[in-house]
Protein backbone atom coordinates (compact mmCIF):
# COMPACT_ATOMS: atom_id res chain seq x y z
CA UNK A 1 0.00 0.00 0.00
CA UNK A 2 1.31 3.48 -0.83
CA UNK A 3 2.30 5.47 2.22
CA UNK A 4 0.32 8.67 2.49
CA UNK A 5 3.15 10.93 3.49
CA UNK A 6 4.26 14.57 3.31
CA UNK A 7 5.86 15.49 -0.01
CA UNK A 8 9.06 16.56 1.69
CA UNK A 9 9.56 13.09 3.14
CA UNK A 10 8.67 11.35 -0.10
CA UNK A 11 11.24 13.36 -2.06
CA UNK A 12 13.87 12.96 0.66
CA UNK A 13 13.50 9.20 0.82
CA UNK A 14 12.97 8.43 -2.86
CA UNK A 15 14.82 10.93 -5.08
CA UNK A 16 18.61 10.70 -5.10
CA UNK A 17 21.37 12.67 -6.78
CA UNK A 18 22.14 11.20 -10.19
CA UNK A 19 18.70 9.63 -10.57
CA UNK A 20 16.69 9.50 -13.73
CA UNK A 21 13.47 11.24 -12.80
CA UNK A 22 10.32 11.80 -14.84
CA UNK A 23 7.86 14.50 -13.81
CA UNK A 24 4.92 14.01 -16.13
CA UNK A 25 1.66 15.80 -16.82
CA UNK A 26 0.58 16.80 -20.31
CA UNK A 27 -0.32 20.50 -19.76
CA UNK A 28 -2.83 19.11 -17.20
CA UNK A 29 -1.84 18.02 -13.66
CA UNK A 30 1.80 19.09 -13.93
CA UNK A 31 3.52 18.27 -10.61
CA UNK A 32 4.90 21.75 -9.92
CA UNK A 33 4.90 21.34 -6.14
CA UNK A 34 7.08 18.23 -6.43
CA UNK A 35 9.43 20.03 -8.82
CA UNK A 36 9.87 22.80 -6.24
CA UNK A 37 10.53 20.30 -3.49
CA UNK A 38 13.28 18.64 -5.55
CA UNK A 39 14.82 22.09 -6.08
CA UNK A 40 14.56 22.90 -2.37
CA UNK A 41 16.27 19.67 -1.43
CA UNK A 42 19.11 20.54 -3.82
CA UNK A 43 19.15 17.39 -5.94
CA UNK A 44 21.95 17.35 -8.52
CA UNK A 45 22.97 15.47 -11.67
CA UNK A 46 19.46 14.34 -12.44
CA UNK A 47 18.49 13.01 -15.83
CA UNK A 48 15.13 14.67 -16.30
CA UNK A 49 12.66 12.89 -18.56
CA UNK A 50 9.51 14.57 -19.79
CA UNK A 51 7.66 14.74 -23.10
CA UNK A 52 6.90 18.44 -22.77
CA UNK A 53 9.40 20.18 -20.52
CA UNK A 54 7.91 23.55 -19.71
CA UNK A 55 8.15 25.89 -16.72
CA UNK A 56 8.76 23.08 -14.24
CA UNK A 57 11.92 21.89 -16.01
CA UNK A 58 12.97 25.45 -16.88
CA UNK A 59 13.09 26.03 -13.13
CA UNK A 60 14.88 22.77 -12.31
CA UNK A 61 17.43 23.27 -15.11
CA UNK A 62 18.02 26.90 -14.17
CA UNK A 63 18.64 25.85 -10.56
CA UNK A 64 21.26 23.34 -11.66
CA UNK A 65 19.43 20.12 -10.79
CA UNK A 66 19.85 18.50 -14.19
CA UNK A 67 22.76 16.96 -16.08
CA UNK A 68 20.64 15.67 -18.93
CA UNK A 69 17.17 16.04 -20.34
CA UNK A 70 15.23 13.48 -22.38
CA UNK A 71 12.27 15.12 -24.13
CA UNK A 72 10.25 15.63 -27.27
CA UNK A 73 9.01 19.23 -27.07
CA UNK A 74 10.33 22.01 -24.87
CA UNK A 75 8.58 25.33 -24.60
CA UNK A 76 6.34 27.62 -22.60
CA UNK A 77 2.99 26.50 -24.00
CA UNK A 78 1.06 29.36 -25.50
CA UNK A 79 3.86 31.81 -24.73
CA UNK A 80 7.22 30.98 -26.30
CA UNK A 81 10.64 29.67 -25.44
CA UNK A 82 12.07 28.28 -22.23
CA UNK A 83 14.84 30.75 -21.54
CA UNK A 84 16.58 28.73 -18.82
CA UNK A 85 16.54 25.60 -20.98
CA UNK A 86 17.89 27.56 -23.94
CA UNK A 87 20.56 29.19 -21.80
CA UNK A 88 21.70 25.76 -20.62
CA UNK A 89 21.76 24.30 -24.12
CA UNK A 90 23.16 27.36 -25.89
CA UNK A 91 25.50 28.77 -23.17
CA UNK A 92 25.98 25.96 -20.69
CA UNK A 93 24.53 28.02 -17.81
CA UNK A 94 24.42 27.15 -14.95
CA UNK A 95 25.96 23.95 -16.27
CA UNK A 96 26.08 21.95 -19.47
CA UNK A 97 22.90 20.10 -20.21
CA UNK A 98 23.06 16.97 -22.35
CA UNK A 99 19.92 16.33 -24.34
CA UNK A 100 18.34 13.23 -25.80
CA UNK A 101 15.60 14.20 -28.15
CA UNK A 102 12.67 12.19 -29.46
CA UNK A 103 9.29 12.72 -31.02
CA UNK A 104 6.12 12.55 -28.94
CA UNK A 105 5.26 9.22 -30.54
CA UNK A 106 8.68 7.89 -29.61
CA UNK A 107 8.48 9.06 -26.00
CA UNK A 108 4.91 7.85 -25.56
CA UNK A 109 5.85 4.42 -26.88
CA UNK A 110 8.98 4.37 -24.72
CA UNK A 111 6.86 4.97 -21.61
CA UNK A 112 4.47 2.21 -22.66
CA UNK A 113 7.41 -0.14 -23.08
CA UNK A 114 8.74 0.91 -19.68
CA UNK A 115 5.40 0.26 -17.99
CA UNK A 116 5.34 -3.10 -19.79
CA UNK A 117 8.74 -4.11 -18.49
CA UNK A 118 10.15 -4.32 -22.01
CA UNK A 119 13.64 -3.07 -22.90
CA UNK A 120 12.52 -1.37 -26.12
CA UNK A 121 9.61 0.13 -27.99
CA UNK A 122 8.87 -0.40 -31.66
CA UNK A 123 7.05 2.18 -33.73
CA UNK A 124 6.64 3.30 -37.29
CA UNK A 125 8.41 6.58 -36.86
CA UNK A 126 11.30 9.00 -37.35
CA UNK A 127 11.52 8.15 -41.05
CA UNK A 128 12.96 11.05 -43.02
CA UNK A 129 13.72 12.97 -39.85
CA UNK A 130 17.24 14.00 -38.85
CA UNK A 131 16.56 12.98 -35.25
CA UNK A 132 18.14 9.51 -35.69
CA UNK A 133 21.34 11.28 -36.84
CA UNK A 134 21.68 13.09 -33.52
CA UNK A 135 20.17 10.47 -31.20
CA UNK A 136 21.98 7.11 -31.20
CA UNK A 137 19.09 5.68 -29.17
CA UNK A 138 16.92 5.74 -32.28
CA UNK A 139 17.68 2.58 -34.25
CA UNK A 140 15.84 0.51 -36.80
CA UNK A 141 15.00 -3.18 -36.97
CA UNK A 142 13.33 -5.32 -39.61
CA UNK A 143 10.03 -7.04 -38.91
CA UNK A 144 10.64 -10.81 -39.21
CA UNK A 145 7.20 -11.27 -40.77
CA UNK A 146 6.67 -8.32 -43.14
CA UNK A 147 10.25 -7.18 -43.64
CA UNK A 148 9.17 -3.62 -42.82
CA UNK A 149 11.80 -1.42 -41.21
CA UNK A 150 10.58 -0.05 -37.89
CA UNK A 151 12.09 2.37 -35.41
CA UNK A 152 13.31 0.95 -32.11
CA UNK A 153 14.04 3.06 -29.05
CA UNK A 154 14.93 2.05 -25.50
CA UNK A 155 12.09 2.02 -23.06
CA UNK A 156 11.94 4.81 -20.49
CA UNK A 157 12.57 3.39 -17.02
CA UNK A 158 12.95 6.31 -14.60
CA UNK A 159 14.24 5.59 -11.13
CA UNK A 160 11.38 7.70 -9.84
CA UNK A 161 8.33 9.13 -11.57
CA UNK A 162 6.37 12.03 -10.13
CA UNK A 163 2.82 12.87 -11.18
CA UNK A 164 -0.06 14.90 -9.79
CA UNK A 165 -3.65 13.58 -9.62
CA UNK A 166 -7.04 14.75 -8.51
CA UNK A 167 -7.54 12.48 -5.52
CA UNK A 168 -6.54 9.45 -3.52
CA UNK A 169 -8.37 7.35 -1.00
CA UNK A 170 -6.90 6.45 2.39
CA UNK A 171 -5.43 3.26 0.98
CA UNK A 172 -3.46 5.32 -1.52
CA UNK A 173 -5.50 4.39 -4.57
CA UNK A 174 -5.28 7.34 -6.95
CA UNK A 175 -7.82 8.63 -9.47
CA UNK A 176 -6.97 10.95 -12.32
CA UNK A 177 -9.33 12.01 -15.07
CA UNK A 178 -9.59 14.40 -17.99
CA UNK A 179 -6.42 14.79 -20.06
CA UNK A 180 -4.37 11.77 -18.96
CA UNK A 181 -1.22 12.24 -21.05
CA UNK A 182 1.36 9.57 -20.27
CA UNK A 183 1.04 9.71 -16.50
CA UNK A 184 -0.17 6.17 -15.94
CA UNK A 185 2.58 4.72 -18.10
CA UNK A 186 5.21 6.98 -16.56
CA UNK A 187 4.16 5.99 -13.03
CA UNK A 188 4.23 2.29 -13.86
CA UNK A 189 7.55 2.58 -15.71
CA UNK A 190 9.44 3.74 -12.61
CA UNK A 191 11.92 1.25 -11.14
CA UNK A 192 12.04 2.54 -7.58
CA UNK A 193 8.48 3.80 -7.62
CA UNK A 194 6.14 6.67 -8.25
CA UNK A 195 5.37 9.69 -6.10
CA UNK A 196 1.85 11.00 -6.63
CA UNK A 197 0.81 14.37 -5.27
CA UNK A 198 -2.97 14.75 -5.00
CA UNK A 199 -5.46 17.55 -4.55
CA UNK A 200 -7.20 15.73 -1.73
CA UNK A 201 -7.54 12.46 0.14
CA UNK A 202 -11.13 11.19 0.26
CA UNK A 203 -13.01 8.29 1.80
CA UNK A 204 -14.26 6.98 -1.54
CA UNK A 205 -12.85 7.78 -4.98
CA UNK A 206 -16.30 7.45 -6.60
CA UNK A 207 -14.46 6.24 -9.68
CA UNK A 208 -16.36 4.85 -12.68
CA UNK A 209 -15.52 1.14 -13.29
CA UNK A 210 -13.01 1.79 -16.07
CA UNK A 211 -11.54 5.03 -14.75
CA UNK A 212 -7.81 5.66 -14.67
CA UNK A 213 -7.05 4.43 -11.15
CA UNK A 214 -3.56 3.63 -9.96
CA UNK A 215 -3.72 1.14 -7.08
CA UNK A 216 -1.97 2.30 -3.95
CA UNK A 217 0.15 -0.86 -3.73
CA UNK A 218 1.73 -0.01 -7.09
CA UNK A 219 2.89 3.43 -5.90
CA UNK A 220 5.75 4.46 -3.63
CA UNK A 221 4.17 7.50 -1.99
CA UNK A 222 0.99 9.55 -2.13
CA UNK A 223 1.30 13.12 -0.92
CA UNK A 224 -1.60 15.49 -0.33
CA UNK A 225 -0.70 18.85 -1.90
CA UNK A 226 -3.80 20.92 -2.64
CA UNK A 227 -3.13 23.16 -5.63
CA UNK A 228 0.06 21.20 -6.33
CA UNK A 229 -0.32 21.47 -10.10
CA UNK A 230 -0.41 25.30 -10.05
CA UNK A 231 0.09 27.17 -12.39
CA UNK A 232 -1.16 24.30 -14.58
CA UNK A 233 -4.65 23.06 -13.92
CA UNK A 234 -6.45 20.22 -12.18
CA UNK A 235 -9.73 19.46 -13.90
CA UNK A 236 -12.58 19.84 -11.45
CA UNK A 237 -10.42 21.86 -9.04
CA UNK A 238 -8.89 24.93 -10.67
CA UNK A 239 -8.01 26.43 -14.02
CA UNK A 240 -4.62 27.09 -15.46
CA UNK A 241 -3.27 30.49 -14.36
CA UNK A 242 -2.19 31.80 -17.69
CA UNK A 243 -0.88 35.04 -16.17
CA UNK A 244 1.85 33.01 -14.53
CA UNK A 245 2.93 31.44 -17.83
CA UNK A 246 3.13 34.88 -19.43
CA UNK A 247 4.89 36.40 -16.44
CA UNK A 248 7.39 33.53 -16.41
CA UNK A 249 8.74 34.61 -19.77
CA UNK A 250 9.94 37.87 -18.20
CA UNK A 251 11.32 36.24 -15.05
CA UNK A 252 13.25 33.60 -16.96
CA UNK A 253 14.82 35.91 -19.54
CA UNK A 254 17.58 37.06 -17.20
CA UNK A 255 19.76 34.87 -15.03
CA UNK A 256 19.66 37.35 -12.17
CA UNK A 257 15.90 37.86 -12.22
CA UNK A 258 15.46 34.10 -12.32
CA UNK A 259 17.81 33.45 -9.39
CA UNK A 260 16.18 36.18 -7.29
CA UNK A 261 12.73 34.92 -8.08
CA UNK A 262 13.61 31.31 -7.25
CA UNK A 263 15.25 32.31 -4.00
CA UNK A 264 12.31 34.36 -2.83
CA UNK A 265 9.56 32.04 -4.04
CA UNK A 266 11.04 28.57 -3.71
CA UNK A 267 14.31 28.35 -1.74
CA UNK A 268 13.13 30.69 1.00
CA UNK A 269 9.69 29.09 1.35
CA UNK A 270 9.05 25.91 3.30
CA UNK A 271 6.59 24.25 1.02
CA UNK A 272 4.13 24.80 -1.80
CA UNK A 273 1.65 26.58 0.45
CA UNK A 274 4.46 28.97 1.36
CA UNK A 275 5.27 29.43 -2.32
CA UNK A 276 1.66 30.30 -3.07
CA UNK A 277 1.60 32.88 -0.26
CA UNK A 278 4.77 34.61 -1.41
CA UNK A 279 3.64 34.46 -5.01
CA UNK A 280 0.40 36.17 -4.09
CA UNK A 281 2.44 38.92 -2.43
CA UNK A 282 4.74 39.42 -5.38
CA UNK A 283 1.85 39.44 -7.82
CA UNK A 284 0.16 42.14 -5.74
CA UNK A 285 3.38 44.13 -5.79
CA UNK A 286 3.62 43.82 -9.57
CA UNK A 287 0.00 44.83 -10.12
Amino acid at each position, binding site marked *: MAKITPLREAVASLVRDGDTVALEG*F*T*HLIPHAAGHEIIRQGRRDLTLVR*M*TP*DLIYDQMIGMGCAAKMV*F*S*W*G*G*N*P*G*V*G*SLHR*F*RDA*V*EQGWPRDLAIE*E*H*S*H*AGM*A*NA*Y*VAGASGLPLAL*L*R*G*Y*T*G*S*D*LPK*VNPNIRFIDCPFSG*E*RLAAIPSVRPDVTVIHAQKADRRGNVLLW*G*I*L*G*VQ*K*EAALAARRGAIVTVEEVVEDLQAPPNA*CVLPGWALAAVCPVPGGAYPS*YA*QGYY*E*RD*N*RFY*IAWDRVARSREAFRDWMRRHVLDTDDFAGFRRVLAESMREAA
Partner: protein
Amino acid sequence: MTPGVTATEIMTVAASRLLKDGTVCFVGIGLPSAAANLARLTHAPEVVLIYESGPIGAKPAVLPLSIGDGELALTADTVVGTPEIFRYWLQGGRIDVGFLGAAQIDRFANINTTVIGSYDEPSVRLPGAGGAPEIASQAKEVFIVLKQSPKAFVATLPFVTSAGHLDGGDARARAGIPGAGPTAVITDLGILTPDPVSRELALTGIHPGVTVEQVKRATGWDLKISPDLTTTDLPDAATLAALRDLQARTAAAHGTAPDSTPGTTPITTPITTQGRAGGGASGREG
Protein backbone atom coordinates in the same frame (compact mmCIF):
# COMPACT_ATOMS: atom_id res chain seq x y z
CA MET B 1 -15.99 42.63 -49.07
CA THR B 2 -15.61 42.86 -45.33
CA PRO B 3 -13.55 45.84 -44.31
CA GLY B 4 -10.62 45.43 -41.97
CA VAL B 5 -9.70 41.85 -42.78
CA THR B 6 -6.16 41.00 -41.71
CA ALA B 7 -3.56 38.82 -43.35
CA THR B 8 -3.80 36.36 -40.46
CA GLU B 9 -7.55 36.18 -40.89
CA ILE B 10 -7.21 35.48 -44.60
CA MET B 11 -4.64 32.79 -43.81
CA THR B 12 -6.79 31.18 -41.14
CA VAL B 13 -9.89 31.18 -43.32
CA ALA B 14 -7.98 29.87 -46.35
CA ALA B 15 -6.58 27.04 -44.22
CA SER B 16 -9.98 26.23 -42.76
CA ARG B 17 -11.56 25.99 -46.22
CA LEU B 18 -9.26 23.11 -47.08
CA LEU B 19 -10.80 20.92 -44.39
CA LYS B 20 -13.72 18.96 -45.81
CA ASP B 21 -16.67 18.04 -43.67
CA GLY B 22 -16.27 14.67 -41.98
CA THR B 23 -12.48 14.80 -42.16
CA VAL B 24 -10.59 13.28 -39.24
CA CYS B 25 -7.99 15.89 -38.39
CA PHE B 26 -4.98 15.67 -36.07
CA VAL B 27 -4.62 19.25 -34.90
CA GLY B 28 -1.51 21.14 -33.89
CA ILE B 29 -1.90 24.04 -31.47
CA GLY B 30 -2.02 27.68 -32.57
CA LEU B 31 -2.84 28.51 -36.19
CA PRO B 32 -3.85 24.92 -37.12
CA SER B 33 -6.20 24.74 -34.16
CA ALA B 34 -7.79 28.08 -35.04
CA ALA B 35 -8.30 27.03 -38.66
CA ALA B 36 -9.64 23.59 -37.80
CA ASN B 37 -12.10 24.94 -35.26
CA LEU B 38 -13.23 27.63 -37.66
CA ALA B 39 -13.97 24.89 -40.19
CA ARG B 40 -15.96 23.02 -37.56
CA LEU B 41 -17.95 26.14 -36.70
CA THR B 42 -18.70 26.96 -40.34
CA HIS B 43 -18.74 24.60 -43.32
CA ALA B 44 -17.53 21.38 -41.69
CA PRO B 45 -19.61 20.67 -38.57
CA GLU B 46 -18.76 16.96 -38.70
CA VAL B 47 -15.00 17.43 -38.83
CA VAL B 48 -13.38 15.27 -36.12
CA LEU B 49 -10.65 17.05 -34.18
CA ILE B 50 -8.02 14.95 -32.42
CA TYR B 51 -5.36 16.49 -30.19
CA GLU B 52 -2.22 14.68 -29.13
CA SER B 53 -3.03 15.13 -25.44
CA GLY B 54 -5.89 12.65 -25.83
CA PRO B 55 -9.23 14.25 -26.79
CA ILE B 56 -11.01 12.66 -29.75
CA GLY B 57 -13.83 14.67 -31.29
CA ALA B 58 -13.09 17.84 -29.35
CA LYS B 59 -15.56 20.70 -29.88
CA PRO B 60 -14.07 23.58 -27.92
CA ALA B 61 -16.14 26.74 -27.58
CA VAL B 62 -12.93 28.73 -27.16
CA LEU B 63 -9.55 28.05 -28.69
CA PRO B 64 -7.20 26.09 -26.45
CA LEU B 65 -4.07 27.84 -25.20
CA SER B 66 -2.25 24.56 -24.95
CA ILE B 67 -2.57 21.17 -26.53
CA GLY B 68 -4.13 19.81 -23.35
CA ASP B 69 -6.71 22.37 -22.23
CA GLY B 70 -9.58 21.13 -20.08
CA GLU B 71 -11.97 22.59 -22.65
CA LEU B 72 -10.78 19.95 -25.11
CA ALA B 73 -11.40 17.15 -22.62
CA LEU B 74 -14.83 18.36 -21.58
CA THR B 75 -16.14 18.72 -25.13
CA ALA B 76 -14.64 15.56 -26.64
CA ASP B 77 -16.46 12.34 -27.48
CA THR B 78 -13.81 10.59 -25.41
CA VAL B 79 -10.40 11.28 -23.93
CA VAL B 80 -7.76 8.58 -24.20
CA GLY B 81 -4.13 8.56 -23.11
CA THR B 82 -1.45 10.17 -25.22
CA PRO B 83 0.16 6.81 -26.08
CA GLU B 84 -3.15 5.59 -27.48
CA ILE B 85 -3.48 8.72 -29.63
CA PHE B 86 -0.15 8.03 -31.28
CA ARG B 87 -0.53 4.25 -31.42
CA TYR B 88 -4.14 3.40 -32.20
CA TRP B 89 -5.27 6.60 -33.89
CA LEU B 90 -2.29 8.10 -35.74
CA GLN B 91 -0.10 5.06 -36.42
CA GLY B 92 -3.30 3.02 -36.81
CA GLY B 93 -3.92 4.98 -40.02
CA ARG B 94 -7.12 6.73 -38.95
CA ILE B 95 -6.07 10.35 -39.54
CA ASP B 96 -7.13 12.00 -42.81
CA VAL B 97 -5.37 15.31 -42.32
CA GLY B 98 -2.48 16.28 -40.12
CA PHE B 99 -2.65 20.03 -39.56
CA LEU B 100 0.75 21.40 -38.56
CA GLY B 101 2.55 24.62 -37.89
CA ALA B 102 6.29 25.00 -38.45
CA ALA B 103 9.22 27.24 -37.63
CA GLN B 104 10.89 26.67 -41.02
CA ILE B 105 10.13 24.76 -44.18
CA ASP B 106 12.05 24.16 -47.38
CA ARG B 107 10.96 23.87 -51.02
CA PHE B 108 9.88 20.25 -50.50
CA ALA B 109 7.86 21.15 -47.43
CA ASN B 110 10.22 19.45 -45.03
CA ILE B 111 9.82 20.94 -41.57
CA ASN B 112 12.30 22.20 -39.00
CA THR B 113 11.22 22.84 -35.42
CA THR B 114 14.46 21.75 -33.74
CA VAL B 115 17.40 24.15 -34.10
CA ILE B 116 18.76 27.09 -36.09
CA GLY B 117 22.47 26.58 -36.63
CA SER B 118 24.19 23.33 -35.79
CA TYR B 119 22.52 20.78 -33.55
CA ASP B 120 25.34 20.68 -31.02
CA GLU B 121 25.97 24.44 -30.93
CA PRO B 122 22.67 25.95 -31.99
CA SER B 123 22.24 29.66 -32.53
CA VAL B 124 18.57 29.22 -31.66
CA ARG B 125 17.18 26.25 -29.83
CA LEU B 126 13.60 25.63 -31.03
CA PRO B 127 11.04 23.56 -29.06
CA GLY B 128 11.69 20.31 -30.88
CA ALA B 129 9.68 17.67 -32.66
CA GLY B 130 6.55 17.24 -30.59
CA GLY B 131 4.11 15.08 -32.49
CA ALA B 132 5.08 16.38 -35.90
CA PRO B 133 7.43 13.68 -37.29
CA GLU B 134 4.80 10.96 -37.06
CA ILE B 135 1.88 13.24 -37.92
CA ALA B 136 3.78 14.36 -41.02
CA SER B 137 4.52 10.79 -42.03
CA GLN B 138 1.32 8.96 -41.08
CA ALA B 139 -1.62 11.28 -41.69
CA LYS B 140 -3.09 10.59 -45.11
CA GLU B 141 -2.19 14.15 -46.06
CA VAL B 142 -0.70 17.15 -44.30
CA PHE B 143 -1.56 20.84 -44.31
CA ILE B 144 1.08 23.24 -43.02
CA VAL B 145 0.14 26.72 -41.93
CA LEU B 146 2.75 29.37 -41.14
CA LYS B 147 3.56 32.96 -41.90
CA GLN B 148 5.79 33.49 -44.88
CA SER B 149 9.22 35.14 -44.54
CA PRO B 150 12.75 34.48 -45.79
CA LYS B 151 13.69 33.25 -42.32
CA ALA B 152 10.85 30.70 -42.33
CA PHE B 153 10.97 29.64 -45.99
CA VAL B 154 14.59 28.64 -46.40
CA ALA B 155 16.62 27.10 -49.20
CA THR B 156 18.27 24.57 -46.90
CA LEU B 157 16.97 23.52 -43.52
CA PRO B 158 19.57 23.33 -40.78
CA PHE B 159 17.64 20.32 -39.44
CA VAL B 160 14.82 18.22 -40.87
CA THR B 161 12.56 17.48 -37.93
CA SER B 162 9.61 16.13 -39.91
CA ALA B 163 9.57 14.77 -43.42
CA GLY B 164 7.79 16.58 -46.19
CA HIS B 165 8.74 15.34 -49.63
CA LEU B 166 12.41 14.90 -48.64
CA ASP B 167 14.47 15.50 -51.79
CA GLY B 168 11.39 15.60 -53.96
CA GLY B 169 10.12 13.27 -56.66
CA ASP B 170 9.31 9.85 -55.20
CA ALA B 171 11.86 10.16 -52.39
CA ARG B 172 9.13 10.01 -49.77
CA ALA B 173 7.56 6.85 -51.11
CA ARG B 174 10.99 5.25 -51.53
CA ALA B 175 11.72 5.95 -47.89
CA GLY B 176 8.63 3.90 -47.04
CA ILE B 177 6.68 6.77 -45.52
CA PRO B 178 2.98 5.85 -45.65
CA GLY B 179 1.05 9.13 -46.00
CA ALA B 180 0.92 11.41 -49.05
CA GLY B 181 2.75 14.16 -47.17
CA PRO B 182 2.16 17.90 -47.36
CA THR B 183 -0.44 18.76 -49.99
CA ALA B 184 -0.82 22.43 -49.08
CA VAL B 185 1.14 25.14 -47.31
CA ILE B 186 -1.08 28.02 -46.30
CA THR B 187 0.61 31.32 -45.48
CA ASP B 188 -0.41 34.90 -44.88
CA LEU B 189 0.49 35.63 -48.52
CA GLY B 190 -0.90 32.69 -50.42
CA ILE B 191 -1.13 28.95 -50.85
CA LEU B 192 1.75 26.74 -51.99
CA THR B 193 1.19 23.24 -53.29
CA PRO B 194 3.70 20.60 -54.39
CA ASP B 195 4.20 19.85 -58.08
CA PRO B 196 2.70 16.41 -58.78
CA VAL B 197 6.01 15.10 -60.15
CA SER B 198 8.89 17.05 -58.66
CA ARG B 199 7.04 17.72 -55.37
CA GLU B 200 8.60 21.18 -55.27
CA LEU B 201 6.28 23.75 -53.76
CA ALA B 202 4.85 26.29 -56.19
CA LEU B 203 2.67 29.27 -55.48
CA THR B 204 -0.77 28.22 -56.70
CA GLY B 205 -2.91 30.72 -54.82
CA ILE B 206 -2.28 34.29 -53.84
CA HIS B 207 -4.23 36.30 -51.32
CA PRO B 208 -6.03 39.43 -52.55
CA GLY B 209 -3.80 42.50 -52.67
CA VAL B 210 -0.57 40.50 -52.42
CA THR B 211 1.87 40.70 -55.34
CA VAL B 212 3.88 37.79 -56.69
CA GLU B 213 6.99 39.85 -56.11
CA GLN B 214 6.05 40.16 -52.43
CA VAL B 215 5.71 36.40 -52.11
CA LYS B 216 9.02 35.79 -53.88
CA ARG B 217 10.75 38.23 -51.54
CA ALA B 218 9.32 36.36 -48.56
CA THR B 219 10.73 33.05 -49.79
CA GLY B 220 14.34 31.97 -49.32
CA TRP B 221 14.53 30.11 -52.61
CA ASP B 222 13.56 30.92 -56.17
CA LEU B 223 9.86 30.19 -55.72
CA LYS B 224 8.06 28.72 -58.73
CA ILE B 225 4.81 30.41 -59.62
CA SER B 226 1.98 28.29 -61.00
CA PRO B 227 0.81 29.31 -64.48
CA ASP B 228 -2.68 28.75 -63.12
CA LEU B 229 -2.23 31.06 -60.15
CA THR B 230 -5.58 31.91 -58.60
CA THR B 231 -6.49 34.65 -56.18
CA THR B 232 -7.90 33.59 -52.83
CA ASP B 233 -11.48 34.57 -52.19
CA LEU B 234 -11.73 36.97 -49.32
CA PRO B 235 -13.53 35.56 -46.30
CA ASP B 236 -17.28 36.02 -46.54
CA ALA B 237 -18.94 38.02 -43.82
CA ALA B 238 -20.37 35.01 -41.98
CA THR B 239 -17.04 33.18 -41.84
CA LEU B 240 -15.20 36.28 -40.73
CA ALA B 241 -17.80 36.90 -38.07
CA ALA B 242 -17.45 33.30 -36.87
CA LEU B 243 -13.68 33.65 -36.67
CA ARG B 244 -13.86 36.95 -34.82
CA ASP B 245 -16.46 35.59 -32.41
CA LEU B 246 -14.23 32.62 -31.72
CA GLN B 247 -11.25 34.88 -31.10
CA ALA B 248 -13.25 37.19 -28.89
CA ARG B 249 -14.58 34.28 -26.83
CA THR B 250 -11.06 32.95 -26.56
CA ALA B 251 -9.62 36.27 -25.44
CA ALA B 252 -12.39 36.68 -22.90
CA ALA B 253 -11.86 33.18 -21.52
CA HIS B 254 -8.09 33.25 -21.32
CA GLY B 255 -7.43 36.92 -20.70
CA THR B 256 -5.02 36.67 -23.61
CA ALA B 257 -5.08 35.89 -27.28
CA PRO B 258 -3.57 32.93 -29.09
CA ASP B 259 -1.23 33.15 -32.05
CA SER B 260 -4.00 33.47 -34.55
CA THR B 261 -5.39 36.67 -33.15
CA PRO B 262 -5.77 39.34 -35.80
CA GLY B 263 -2.85 41.72 -36.03
CA THR B 264 -3.32 45.00 -34.28
CA THR B 265 -3.50 46.93 -37.52
CA PRO B 266 -6.54 45.91 -39.58
CA ILE B 267 -5.76 45.89 -43.25
CA THR B 268 -7.54 45.22 -46.47
CA THR B 269 -5.21 45.69 -49.41
CA PRO B 270 -2.31 45.84 -49.69
CA ILE B 271 -1.64 43.29 -46.97
CA THR B 272 1.29 44.29 -44.84
CA THR B 273 3.55 42.03 -42.89
CA GLN B 274 2.66 43.63 -39.60
CA GLY B 275 2.21 41.32 -36.67
CA ARG B 276 4.13 38.46 -38.24
CA ALA B 277 6.12 36.19 -36.02
CA GLY B 278 8.96 35.76 -38.51
CA GLY B 279 11.10 32.64 -38.47
CA GLY B 280 11.22 32.05 -34.77
CA ALA B 281 10.00 29.14 -32.77
CA SER B 282 6.42 28.11 -32.96
CA GLY B 283 5.88 28.30 -29.24
CA ARG B 284 2.27 27.31 -29.26
CA GLU B 285 2.38 23.61 -28.80
CA GLY B 286 2.67 22.17 -25.39
